[in-house]
């Protein structure tokens, strides 16, 4: 009994310390949702071929071949740490967006890459599942909905046509396109 009272007292002391602990400024934390909470914005960026976005598809190759976002590069999660693939993460002034079907793979890739000190990393919120639901199969707004919602619907329908209708051409084009890889600078090696 005495032991329990002692432990409780100690724990309570810790509780008070924690409650009044000033907030520690950690390194700038990039929230995966920070940028891509606006999924429409991404759709727009892709259609307009925004050069500031670099998409990485973390799914397996078969899935990637079936459907993928334009200009995306396929790096299955298990191959992310291969040296050739790590070079892709060295993008200057580009936003790297990880995506997979859900968000588990992309969150894992985000965490791994962040810990390896790569910058400008983002995750596609909700993954391709959400993408399919919001962009490819948008719901028609209710009759009493705001004008903005109708605009949004129009845009999504347009985007949907872009992503599904001209899919084949896109694929053909993509194959030709070569993504510029930036090689990591080699460290100066010693010796003669």
């Amino acid at each position: 009994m005495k032991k329990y009272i002692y432990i409780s007292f100690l724990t309570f002391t810790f509780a008070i310390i924690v409650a009044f602990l000033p907030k520690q400024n950690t390194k700038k934390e990039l929230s995966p949702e920070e940028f891509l909470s606006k999924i429409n914005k991404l759709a727009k960026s892709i259609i307009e071929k925004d050069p500031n976005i670099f998409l990485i598809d973390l799914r397996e190759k078969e899935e990637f071949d079936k459907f993928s976002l334009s200009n995306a590069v396929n790096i299955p999660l298990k191959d992310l740490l291969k040296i050739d693939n790590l070079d892709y993460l060295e993008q200057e002034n580009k936003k790297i967006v990880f995506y997979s079907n859900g968000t588990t793979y992309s969150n894992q890739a985000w965490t791994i890459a962040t810990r390896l000190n790569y910058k400008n990393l983002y995750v596609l919120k909700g993954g391709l599942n959400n993408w399919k639901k919001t962009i490819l199969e948008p719901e028609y707004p209710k009759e009493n909905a705001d004008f903005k919602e109708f605009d949004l619907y129009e845009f999504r329908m347009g985007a949907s046509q872009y992503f599904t209708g001209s899919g084949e051409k896109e694929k053909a084009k993509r194959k030709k396109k070569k993504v510029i890889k930036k090689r990591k600078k080699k460290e100066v090696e010693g010796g003669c």
Partner: protein
Amino acid sequence: MIPFFSPQDEITFVISFIIGIAFGFILEQAGFSSSRKLAGVFYGYDFVVVRVFFTAAITTMLGLIFLNYFGYLNFSDIFINSTYIWATAVGGAIMGLGFIIGGFCPGTSVCALAIGKIDAMVFVAGIFIGAFIFGEAYPIFKDIYIEGNLGRILIYDTLGISQGTFAFSMILIALIMFWGSYFIQKKISKKEMKY
């Protein structure tokens, strides 16, 4: 994922292995390989499970907060899985049912299996059968599985309170729970002795 090492270090496998062994050993030592003890929490005669889990939670919480405060650990280095609200709710209900029927949770069943308990063997076989059924019938469950993704959310952000306040209330709840369960257990044990 161990935040103190780079994911490229092979030593992380060794550390994971050691932590795994230690985890299993402590679970067994705390009596978690006994389904009677585990189910006791539902009947009110044994609260060790709740106590151990709460102790683990507040110890980890205090450890993380202090390590972060002294600059040894960056919170963004910790992998947090996305919250799928419906899948979590349904899965939680199934897991709770399985817990009270089978007397184990998935982790403790493996722990009990390791010391050769027959009921645990049956339980683990059940886990595999369940996983197989889920895998085969995935198209049926798919909608609920991927629906309601809330992303990387944290309780104190959702409630709109500071991390410190949340930690404080969590410890307070744990202390109330410790003492509450102590008295309930005393009362129920006494009652049982009369029969």
